[in-house]
Protein backbone atom coordinates (compact mmCIF):
# COMPACT_ATOMS: atom_id res chain seq x y z
CA UNK A 1 0.00 0.00 0.00
CA UNK A 2 2.90 2.35 0.74
CA UNK A 3 4.05 1.84 -2.88
CA UNK A 4 0.60 2.98 -4.06
CA UNK A 5 0.85 6.04 -1.79
CA UNK A 6 4.24 6.92 -3.26
CA UNK A 7 3.03 6.38 -6.83
CA UNK A 8 0.05 8.60 -6.05
CA UNK A 9 2.37 11.24 -4.63
CA UNK A 10 4.42 11.12 -7.85
CA UNK A 11 1.27 11.55 -9.95
CA UNK A 12 0.25 14.43 -7.66
CA UNK A 13 3.61 16.15 -8.23
CA UNK A 14 3.24 15.84 -12.01
CA UNK A 15 -0.40 17.02 -11.94
CA UNK A 16 0.53 19.90 -9.64
CA UNK A 17 3.43 21.12 -11.74
CA UNK A 18 1.60 21.08 -15.06
CA UNK A 19 -1.01 23.85 -15.11
CA UNK A 20 -4.22 22.65 -16.66
CA UNK A 21 -3.60 19.01 -15.75
CA UNK A 22 -5.82 18.11 -12.80
CA UNK A 23 -5.87 15.04 -10.60
CA UNK A 24 -9.48 14.61 -11.82
CA UNK A 25 -8.12 13.78 -15.31
CA UNK A 26 -5.86 11.06 -13.91
CA UNK A 27 -8.66 9.78 -11.66
CA UNK A 28 -11.00 9.34 -14.62
CA UNK A 29 -8.35 7.16 -16.33
CA UNK A 30 -7.80 5.18 -13.12
CA UNK A 31 -11.53 4.58 -12.74
CA UNK A 32 -11.35 2.58 -15.98
CA UNK A 33 -8.68 0.21 -14.62
CA UNK A 34 -9.54 -3.01 -12.76
CA UNK A 35 -7.66 -1.81 -9.64
CA UNK A 36 -9.78 -1.08 -6.61
CA UNK A 37 -9.91 -1.26 -2.81
CA UNK A 38 -7.36 0.26 -0.51
CA UNK A 39 -4.64 0.35 -3.20
CA UNK A 40 -6.56 2.68 -5.49
CA UNK A 41 -7.76 4.67 -2.47
CA UNK A 42 -4.14 5.14 -1.39
CA UNK A 43 -3.12 6.23 -4.89
CA UNK A 44 -5.95 8.72 -5.41
CA UNK A 45 -5.86 10.28 -1.94
CA UNK A 46 -2.07 10.70 -2.09
CA UNK A 47 -2.31 12.22 -5.54
CA UNK A 48 -5.00 14.74 -4.55
CA UNK A 49 -3.31 15.87 -1.37
CA UNK A 50 0.18 16.16 -2.89
CA UNK A 51 -1.24 18.06 -5.85
CA UNK A 52 -3.03 20.47 -3.50
CA UNK A 53 0.41 21.45 -2.14
CA UNK A 54 2.52 21.38 -5.33
CA UNK A 55 0.11 23.33 -7.55
CA UNK A 56 1.02 26.57 -5.76
CA UNK A 57 4.49 26.43 -7.39
CA UNK A 58 3.38 27.24 -10.97
CA UNK A 59 0.90 29.77 -9.53
CA UNK A 60 3.72 31.57 -7.77
CA UNK A 61 6.57 31.37 -10.28
CA UNK A 62 4.70 31.30 -13.58
CA UNK A 63 1.45 33.04 -12.61
CA UNK A 64 -0.11 29.93 -14.14
CA UNK A 65 -3.20 29.14 -12.10
CA UNK A 66 -4.96 25.85 -11.63
CA UNK A 67 -8.66 25.45 -10.96
CA UNK A 68 -7.83 25.50 -7.25
CA UNK A 69 -5.20 28.20 -7.03
CA UNK A 70 -6.16 31.11 -9.27
CA UNK A 71 -7.04 33.31 -6.29
CA UNK A 72 -3.46 32.88 -5.11
CA UNK A 73 -1.87 34.19 -8.30
CA UNK A 74 -1.98 37.87 -7.40
CA UNK A 75 -0.73 37.72 -3.78
CA UNK A 76 1.83 35.02 -4.61
CA UNK A 77 3.18 36.87 -7.66
CA UNK A 78 3.35 40.07 -5.61
CA UNK A 79 5.46 38.27 -2.99
CA UNK A 80 7.61 36.74 -5.76
CA UNK A 81 8.47 40.20 -7.05
CA UNK A 82 9.30 41.27 -3.48
CA UNK A 83 11.76 38.36 -3.29
CA UNK A 84 9.49 36.40 -0.95
CA UNK A 85 8.47 33.49 -3.18
CA UNK A 86 9.60 30.89 -0.65
CA UNK A 87 7.66 32.65 2.08
CA UNK A 88 4.55 32.62 -0.12
CA UNK A 89 4.83 28.89 -0.80
CA UNK A 90 5.74 28.06 2.79
CA UNK A 91 2.55 29.80 3.94
CA UNK A 92 0.42 27.69 1.59
CA UNK A 93 2.13 24.57 2.96
CA UNK A 94 1.54 25.72 6.52
CA UNK A 95 -2.15 26.22 5.71
CA UNK A 96 -2.33 22.74 4.17
CA UNK A 97 -0.68 21.06 7.15
CA UNK A 98 -2.99 22.82 9.63
CA UNK A 99 -5.95 21.77 7.48
CA UNK A 100 -4.96 18.12 7.53
CA UNK A 101 -4.33 18.05 11.28
CA UNK A 102 -7.55 19.88 12.18
CA UNK A 103 -9.46 17.95 9.52
CA UNK A 104 -8.51 14.62 11.06
CA UNK A 105 -9.83 15.81 14.44
CA UNK A 106 -13.08 17.21 13.00
CA UNK A 107 -14.07 14.20 10.91
CA UNK A 108 -16.67 12.81 13.34
CA UNK A 109 -18.43 16.15 14.13
CA UNK A 110 -18.42 16.79 10.39
CA UNK A 111 -20.20 13.45 9.77
CA UNK A 112 -22.88 14.33 12.32
CA UNK A 113 -23.37 17.79 10.86
CA UNK A 114 -23.71 16.36 7.35
CA UNK A 115 -26.27 13.78 8.33
CA UNK A 116 -28.43 16.36 10.11
CA UNK A 117 -28.20 19.24 7.64
CA UNK A 118 -27.65 17.83 4.16
CA UNK A 119 -30.97 19.14 2.76
CA UNK A 120 -30.52 22.70 4.10
CA UNK A 121 -27.11 22.92 2.41
CA UNK A 122 -28.66 22.90 -1.08
CA UNK A 123 -31.07 25.72 -0.13
CA UNK A 124 -28.26 27.76 1.40
CA UNK A 125 -25.88 27.56 -1.58
CA UNK A 126 -27.52 30.15 -3.91
CA UNK A 127 -28.26 32.46 -0.96
CA UNK A 128 -24.58 32.54 0.01
CA UNK A 129 -23.52 33.10 -3.60
CA UNK A 130 -26.00 35.97 -4.12
CA UNK A 131 -24.81 37.44 -0.82
CA UNK A 132 -21.21 37.31 -2.10
CA UNK A 133 -22.14 39.22 -5.28
CA UNK A 134 -23.98 41.86 -3.22
CA UNK A 135 -20.87 42.28 -1.08
CA UNK A 136 -18.67 42.73 -4.17
CA UNK A 137 -20.92 45.66 -5.21
CA UNK A 138 -21.69 47.27 -1.86
CA UNK A 139 -18.04 47.30 -0.84
CA UNK A 140 -17.28 49.98 -3.44
CA UNK A 141 -17.40 53.57 -2.27
CA UNK A 142 -19.37 55.49 -4.91
CA UNK A 143 -22.09 54.82 -7.47
CA UNK A 144 -19.69 54.95 -10.43
CA UNK A 145 -17.49 52.21 -8.94
CA UNK A 146 -20.54 50.16 -7.95
CA UNK A 147 -21.68 50.30 -11.60
CA UNK A 148 -18.21 49.22 -12.77
CA UNK A 149 -18.36 46.19 -10.48
CA UNK A 150 -21.88 45.40 -11.67
CA UNK A 151 -20.65 45.57 -15.28
CA UNK A 152 -17.80 43.18 -14.44
CA UNK A 153 -20.18 40.75 -12.71
CA UNK A 154 -22.61 40.75 -15.67
CA UNK A 155 -19.81 40.30 -18.22
CA UNK A 156 -18.21 37.53 -16.17
CA UNK A 157 -21.57 35.82 -15.83
CA UNK A 158 -21.97 35.97 -19.61
CA UNK A 159 -18.47 34.45 -19.99
CA UNK A 160 -19.48 31.69 -17.57
CA UNK A 161 -22.57 30.82 -19.62
CA UNK A 162 -20.99 31.23 -23.04
CA UNK A 163 -17.67 29.52 -22.36
CA UNK A 164 -18.96 26.47 -20.50
CA UNK A 165 -16.22 23.89 -19.81
CA UNK A 166 -13.54 26.52 -20.51
CA UNK A 167 -12.62 27.18 -16.88
CA UNK A 168 -8.87 26.93 -17.45
CA UNK A 169 -8.74 29.58 -20.25
CA UNK A 170 -11.07 31.86 -18.29
CA UNK A 171 -9.11 31.76 -15.04
CA UNK A 172 -5.82 31.97 -16.94
CA UNK A 173 -7.10 35.10 -18.68
CA UNK A 174 -8.58 36.80 -15.63
CA UNK A 175 -5.87 35.99 -13.12
CA UNK A 176 -2.76 35.02 -15.09
CA UNK A 177 -2.40 36.65 -18.51
CA UNK A 178 -4.12 39.92 -17.50
CA UNK A 179 -1.75 40.36 -14.57
CA UNK A 180 1.28 39.55 -16.72
CA UNK A 181 0.25 42.05 -19.43
CA UNK A 182 -0.28 44.71 -16.77
CA UNK A 183 3.11 43.91 -15.25
CA UNK A 184 4.81 44.53 -18.64
CA UNK A 185 4.14 48.22 -18.09
CA UNK A 186 6.37 48.18 -15.04
CA UNK A 187 10.10 48.83 -15.26
CA UNK A 188 12.60 45.97 -15.47
CA UNK A 189 13.83 44.46 -12.22
CA UNK A 190 15.70 41.31 -11.32
CA UNK A 191 14.27 38.62 -9.10
CA UNK A 192 16.18 38.32 -5.88
CA UNK A 193 14.47 35.70 -3.79
CA UNK A 194 15.85 35.18 -0.32
CA UNK A 195 16.72 31.54 0.36
CA UNK A 196 16.74 31.23 4.14
CA UNK A 197 14.50 34.02 5.17
CA UNK A 198 13.01 33.66 8.64
CA UNK A 199 9.48 34.83 9.07
CA UNK A 200 6.98 34.70 11.85
CA UNK A 201 3.81 32.66 11.82
CA UNK A 202 1.58 35.09 13.65
CA UNK A 203 -1.68 34.48 15.54
CA UNK A 204 -3.48 36.04 12.61
CA UNK A 205 -1.95 33.46 10.24
CA UNK A 206 -3.14 30.56 12.38
CA UNK A 207 -6.60 32.15 12.55
CA UNK A 208 -6.65 32.39 8.76
CA UNK A 209 -5.61 28.74 8.47
CA UNK A 210 -8.55 27.77 10.69
CA UNK A 211 -10.91 29.93 8.61
CA UNK A 212 -9.49 28.08 5.59
CA UNK A 213 -10.32 24.72 7.16
CA UNK A 214 -13.92 25.88 7.66
CA UNK A 215 -13.90 27.10 4.03
CA UNK A 216 -12.68 23.69 2.86
CA UNK A 217 -15.51 21.99 4.74
CA UNK A 218 -18.02 24.32 3.03
CA UNK A 219 -16.46 23.66 -0.39
CA UNK A 220 -16.71 19.90 0.10
CA UNK A 221 -20.46 19.98 0.79
CA UNK A 222 -21.74 22.95 -1.22
CA UNK A 223 -22.11 22.10 -4.89
CA UNK A 224 -20.85 24.81 -7.22
CA UNK A 225 -18.49 26.45 -4.75
CA UNK A 226 -14.82 25.80 -5.48
CA UNK A 227 -11.78 26.44 -3.30
CA UNK A 228 -11.19 29.81 -4.92
CA UNK A 229 -14.81 30.92 -4.73
CA UNK A 230 -14.80 30.15 -1.01
CA UNK A 231 -11.50 32.03 -0.62
CA UNK A 232 -12.88 35.00 -2.55
CA UNK A 233 -16.10 35.09 -0.52
CA UNK A 234 -14.23 34.89 2.78
CA UNK A 235 -11.87 37.58 1.52
CA UNK A 236 -14.80 39.78 0.53
CA UNK A 237 -16.37 39.36 3.96
CA UNK A 238 -13.20 40.32 5.76
CA UNK A 239 -11.24 43.52 5.82
CA UNK A 240 -7.78 43.56 4.22
CA UNK A 241 -5.59 40.65 5.13
CA UNK A 242 -1.84 40.23 4.52
CA UNK A 243 -1.06 38.30 1.31
CA UNK A 244 0.84 35.70 3.38
CA UNK A 245 -2.25 35.04 5.53
CA UNK A 246 -4.46 34.89 2.48
CA UNK A 247 -2.15 32.27 0.95
CA UNK A 248 -2.25 30.29 4.20
CA UNK A 249 -6.03 30.34 4.03
CA UNK A 250 -6.06 29.18 0.39
CA UNK A 251 -3.60 26.38 1.21
CA UNK A 252 -5.90 25.28 4.04
CA UNK A 253 -9.05 25.43 1.90
CA UNK A 254 -7.39 23.47 -0.87
CA UNK A 255 -6.13 20.62 1.34
CA UNK A 256 -9.15 20.42 3.63
CA UNK A 257 -11.49 20.32 0.62
CA UNK A 258 -10.10 16.89 -0.36
CA UNK A 259 -10.02 15.77 3.23
CA UNK A 260 -13.67 16.57 3.94
CA UNK A 261 -14.79 15.32 0.51
CA UNK A 262 -13.44 11.88 1.41
CA UNK A 263 -15.23 12.02 4.76
CA UNK A 264 -18.41 13.03 2.96
CA UNK A 265 -18.07 10.17 0.47
CA UNK A 266 -17.85 7.66 3.29
CA UNK A 267 -20.59 9.30 5.36
CA UNK A 268 -23.24 9.85 2.69
CA UNK A 269 -21.97 7.67 -0.17
CA UNK A 270 -21.88 10.72 -2.44
CA UNK A 271 -19.56 13.61 -3.11
CA UNK A 272 -19.09 16.60 -5.40
CA UNK A 273 -15.33 16.31 -5.76
CA UNK A 274 -14.27 14.95 -9.18
CA UNK A 275 -11.62 12.59 -7.85
CA UNK A 276 -13.91 11.27 -5.14
CA UNK A 277 -16.60 10.58 -7.75
CA UNK A 278 -14.07 8.43 -9.62
CA UNK A 279 -13.32 6.69 -6.33
CA UNK A 280 -17.01 6.07 -5.55
CA UNK A 281 -17.17 2.58 -7.05
CA UNK A 282 -13.64 1.66 -6.10
CA UNK A 283 -13.71 1.72 -2.34
CA UNK A 284 -15.10 -0.37 0.47
CA UNK A 285 -17.40 1.67 2.71
CA UNK A 286 -16.00 0.52 6.03
CA UNK A 287 -14.73 2.33 9.15
CA UNK A 288 -11.27 0.87 8.37
CA UNK A 289 -11.27 2.67 5.01
CA UNK A 290 -11.97 5.97 6.77
CA UNK A 291 -9.22 5.39 9.32
CA UNK A 292 -6.57 4.27 6.83
CA UNK A 293 -7.69 6.93 4.33
CA UNK A 294 -7.17 9.60 6.99
CA UNK A 295 -3.69 8.29 7.76
CA UNK A 296 -2.85 8.16 4.04
CA UNK A 297 -3.87 11.80 3.62
CA UNK A 298 -1.77 12.88 6.61
CA UNK A 299 1.17 10.88 5.18
CA UNK A 300 0.66 12.47 1.76
CA UNK A 301 0.41 15.95 3.29
CA UNK A 302 3.82 15.46 4.92
CA UNK A 303 5.33 14.29 1.63
CA UNK A 304 3.54 17.08 -0.26
CA UNK A 305 4.96 19.71 2.08
CA UNK A 306 8.53 18.43 1.85
CA UNK A 307 8.45 17.95 -1.93
CA UNK A 308 6.89 21.37 -2.49
CA UNK A 309 9.63 23.06 -0.49
CA UNK A 310 12.37 21.16 -2.36
CA UNK A 311 10.89 22.01 -5.77
CA UNK A 312 10.27 25.62 -4.72
CA UNK A 313 13.94 26.01 -3.74
CA UNK A 314 14.99 24.61 -7.13
CA UNK A 315 12.60 27.00 -8.82
CA UNK A 316 14.14 29.89 -6.89
CA UNK A 317 17.60 28.87 -8.23
CA UNK A 318 16.15 28.64 -11.71
CA UNK A 319 14.41 31.99 -11.68
CA UNK A 320 16.73 34.05 -9.46
CA UNK A 321 18.51 37.02 -11.03
CA UNK A 322 16.28 36.69 -14.07
CA UNK A 323 14.86 39.79 -15.63
CA UNK A 324 11.24 40.01 -14.43
CA UNK A 325 10.07 41.53 -17.71
CA UNK A 326 11.61 38.69 -19.71
CA UNK A 327 10.18 36.18 -17.24
CA UNK A 328 6.71 37.71 -17.59
CA UNK A 329 6.91 37.55 -21.39
CA UNK A 330 7.99 33.89 -21.25
CA UNK A 331 5.16 33.09 -18.79
CA UNK A 332 2.72 34.85 -21.09
CA UNK A 333 3.81 32.82 -24.13
CA UNK A 334 3.80 29.62 -22.05
CA UNK A 335 0.22 30.18 -20.88
CA UNK A 336 -1.15 31.07 -24.30
CA UNK A 337 0.50 27.97 -25.82
CA UNK A 338 -0.78 25.80 -22.95
CA UNK A 339 -4.37 27.04 -23.39
CA UNK A 340 -4.06 26.44 -27.16
CA UNK A 341 -2.89 22.87 -26.59
CA UNK A 342 -5.38 22.05 -23.83
CA UNK A 343 -8.50 23.82 -25.07
CA UNK A 344 -7.98 24.59 -28.77
CA UNK A 345 -9.40 27.56 -30.64
CA UNK A 346 -12.45 28.05 -28.40
CA UNK A 347 -10.08 28.12 -25.42
CA UNK A 348 -7.97 30.83 -27.06
CA UNK A 349 -11.10 32.88 -27.77
CA UNK A 350 -12.19 32.50 -24.12
CA UNK A 351 -8.67 33.47 -23.04
CA UNK A 352 -8.81 36.62 -25.20
CA UNK A 353 -12.11 37.84 -23.71
CA UNK A 354 -11.11 36.88 -20.16
CA UNK A 355 -7.79 38.71 -20.51
CA UNK A 356 -9.58 41.85 -21.75
CA UNK A 357 -11.89 41.85 -18.74
CA UNK A 358 -9.00 41.00 -16.41
CA UNK A 359 -6.96 43.98 -17.63
CA UNK A 360 -10.02 46.25 -17.32
CA UNK A 361 -10.54 45.06 -13.72
CA UNK A 362 -6.92 45.81 -12.81
CA UNK A 363 -7.00 49.20 -14.54
CA UNK A 364 -10.10 50.18 -12.53
CA UNK A 365 -8.49 48.91 -9.33
CA UNK A 366 -11.44 46.62 -8.61
CA UNK A 367 -11.03 43.58 -6.35
CA UNK A 368 -10.09 40.69 -8.64
CA UNK A 369 -12.21 38.21 -6.69
CA UNK A 370 -15.11 39.87 -8.54
CA UNK A 371 -13.98 37.98 -11.64
CA UNK A 372 -15.07 34.76 -10.00
CA UNK A 373 -18.59 35.81 -10.95
CA UNK A 374 -18.03 33.73 -14.10
CA UNK A 375 -18.37 30.69 -11.83
CA UNK A 376 -20.78 32.17 -9.30
CA UNK A 377 -23.48 33.53 -11.64
CA UNK A 378 -24.08 30.27 -13.61
CA UNK A 379 -24.15 28.34 -10.31
CA UNK A 380 -26.81 30.70 -8.87
CA UNK A 381 -28.98 30.22 -11.95
CA UNK A 382 -28.49 26.46 -11.79
CA UNK A 383 -29.75 26.36 -8.20
CA UNK A 384 -32.59 28.78 -8.74
CA UNK A 385 -33.90 26.50 -11.51
CA UNK A 386 -33.69 23.50 -9.16
CA UNK A 387 -35.32 25.23 -6.19
CA UNK A 388 -38.03 27.26 -7.93
Amino acid at each position, binding site marked *: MIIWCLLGALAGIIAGLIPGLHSNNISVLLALTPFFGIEITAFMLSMCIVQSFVEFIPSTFLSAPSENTFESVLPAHKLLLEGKALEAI*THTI*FGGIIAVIIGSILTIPFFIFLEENSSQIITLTPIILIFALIIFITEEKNLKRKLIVLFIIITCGAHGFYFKNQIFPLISGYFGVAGLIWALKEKETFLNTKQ*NETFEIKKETIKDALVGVAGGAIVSVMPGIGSNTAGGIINALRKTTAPQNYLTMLGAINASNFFFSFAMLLALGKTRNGTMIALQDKI*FYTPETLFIGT*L*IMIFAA*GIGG*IVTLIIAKRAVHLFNQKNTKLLNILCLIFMVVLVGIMNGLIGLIALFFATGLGVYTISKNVRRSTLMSSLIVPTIFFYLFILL
Partner: protein
Amino acid sequence: MNQKHISQICFFITLLSLILIIFSYKPDFEEKTINEILQIQNSKGKLFGRVEYVVKNYPVSIFILNDGNSATIYYPKATTLEENNFVTVYAQNQGQKSLFAQKVVKE
Protein backbone atom coordinates in the same frame (compact mmCIF):
# COMPACT_ATOMS: atom_id res chain seq x y z
CA MET B 1 9.38 30.04 11.82
CA ASN B 2 10.97 29.36 8.42
CA GLN B 3 11.02 26.69 5.71
CA LYS B 4 13.28 24.49 7.83
CA HIS B 5 10.72 24.36 10.65
CA ILE B 6 7.92 23.59 8.22
CA SER B 7 10.09 20.82 6.69
CA GLN B 8 10.64 19.37 10.14
CA ILE B 9 6.90 19.40 10.90
CA CYS B 10 6.20 17.72 7.54
CA PHE B 11 8.89 15.10 8.18
CA PHE B 12 7.46 14.36 11.64
CA ILE B 13 3.92 14.04 10.24
CA THR B 14 5.13 11.74 7.45
CA LEU B 15 7.05 9.51 9.83
CA LEU B 16 4.27 9.32 12.43
CA SER B 17 1.56 8.53 9.89
CA LEU B 18 3.82 5.96 8.19
CA ILE B 19 4.35 4.14 11.50
CA LEU B 20 0.61 4.23 12.22
CA ILE B 21 -0.19 2.91 8.73
CA ILE B 22 2.30 0.06 9.04
CA PHE B 23 1.00 -1.02 12.46
CA SER B 24 -2.72 -0.54 11.87
CA TYR B 25 -3.20 -1.64 8.26
CA LYS B 26 -4.64 -5.06 7.68
CA PRO B 27 -5.67 -6.07 4.19
CA ASP B 28 -9.47 -5.77 3.93
CA PHE B 29 -9.95 -9.06 2.15
CA GLU B 30 -7.69 -12.10 2.24
CA GLU B 31 -8.24 -15.12 0.02
CA LYS B 32 -10.71 -17.49 1.72
CA THR B 33 -13.25 -20.17 0.89
CA ILE B 34 -17.01 -19.96 1.30
CA ASN B 35 -16.79 -22.46 4.17
CA GLU B 36 -14.25 -20.34 6.07
CA ILE B 37 -16.41 -17.21 5.80
CA LEU B 38 -19.63 -18.97 6.74
CA GLN B 39 -18.10 -20.30 9.94
CA ILE B 40 -17.39 -16.91 11.54
CA GLN B 41 -19.89 -14.05 11.67
CA ASN B 42 -18.62 -10.69 10.30
CA SER B 43 -15.62 -12.37 8.68
CA LYS B 44 -14.56 -11.05 5.28
CA GLY B 45 -12.83 -12.74 2.41
CA LYS B 46 -11.91 -12.76 -1.24
CA LEU B 47 -13.74 -15.67 -2.88
CA PHE B 48 -13.09 -17.10 -6.30
CA GLY B 49 -15.62 -19.35 -7.96
CA ARG B 50 -18.15 -20.09 -10.66
CA VAL B 51 -21.61 -18.54 -10.88
CA GLU B 52 -23.94 -21.50 -10.47
CA TYR B 53 -27.25 -19.71 -10.83
CA VAL B 54 -28.34 -16.08 -11.27
CA VAL B 55 -31.50 -15.19 -9.33
CA LYS B 56 -31.54 -11.59 -10.57
CA ASN B 57 -29.27 -8.99 -12.13
CA TYR B 58 -31.25 -5.77 -11.65
CA PRO B 59 -31.61 -3.47 -9.69
CA VAL B 60 -29.53 -5.55 -7.28
CA SER B 61 -27.74 -8.82 -7.99
CA ILE B 62 -28.40 -12.12 -6.26
CA PHE B 63 -26.57 -15.23 -7.41
CA ILE B 64 -25.25 -18.56 -6.19
CA LEU B 65 -21.48 -18.91 -6.12
CA ASN B 66 -19.69 -22.22 -6.12
CA ASP B 67 -16.08 -22.70 -5.04
CA GLY B 68 -16.52 -26.34 -4.07
CA ASN B 69 -19.24 -25.31 -1.67
CA SER B 70 -22.16 -23.05 -2.57
CA ALA B 71 -23.46 -19.82 -1.08
CA THR B 72 -25.97 -17.18 -2.08
CA ILE B 73 -24.35 -13.82 -2.71
CA TYR B 74 -26.20 -10.50 -2.39
CA TYR B 75 -24.57 -7.58 -4.25
CA PRO B 76 -26.40 -4.20 -3.96
CA LYS B 77 -25.73 -3.23 -7.59
CA ALA B 78 -26.82 -4.29 -11.05
CA THR B 79 -24.50 -6.69 -12.94
CA THR B 80 -24.39 -8.57 -16.22
CA LEU B 81 -23.46 -11.90 -14.62
CA GLU B 82 -24.49 -15.12 -16.32
CA GLU B 83 -24.32 -18.75 -15.34
CA ASN B 84 -20.81 -20.29 -15.52
CA ASN B 85 -19.06 -16.93 -15.34
CA PHE B 86 -15.97 -17.06 -13.16
CA VAL B 87 -15.91 -14.27 -10.61
CA THR B 88 -13.95 -12.88 -7.69
CA VAL B 89 -16.25 -11.78 -4.90
CA TYR B 90 -15.21 -9.57 -1.98
CA ALA B 91 -17.73 -10.86 0.51
CA GLN B 92 -18.69 -10.46 4.15
CA ASN B 93 -20.74 -12.68 6.46
CA GLN B 94 -23.24 -10.30 8.05
CA GLY B 95 -25.24 -13.02 9.74
CA GLN B 96 -27.87 -13.09 6.95
CA LYS B 97 -28.87 -16.03 4.81
CA SER B 98 -26.70 -14.71 1.99
CA LEU B 99 -23.17 -13.31 1.98
CA PHE B 100 -22.96 -9.57 1.35
CA ALA B 101 -20.65 -8.66 -1.55
CA GLN B 102 -18.73 -5.39 -1.45
CA LYS B 103 -17.47 -5.96 -4.96
CA VAL B 104 -17.89 -8.53 -7.72
CA VAL B 105 -15.30 -8.77 -10.50
CA LYS B 106 -15.90 -10.89 -13.59
CA GLU B 107 -12.73 -12.79 -14.52
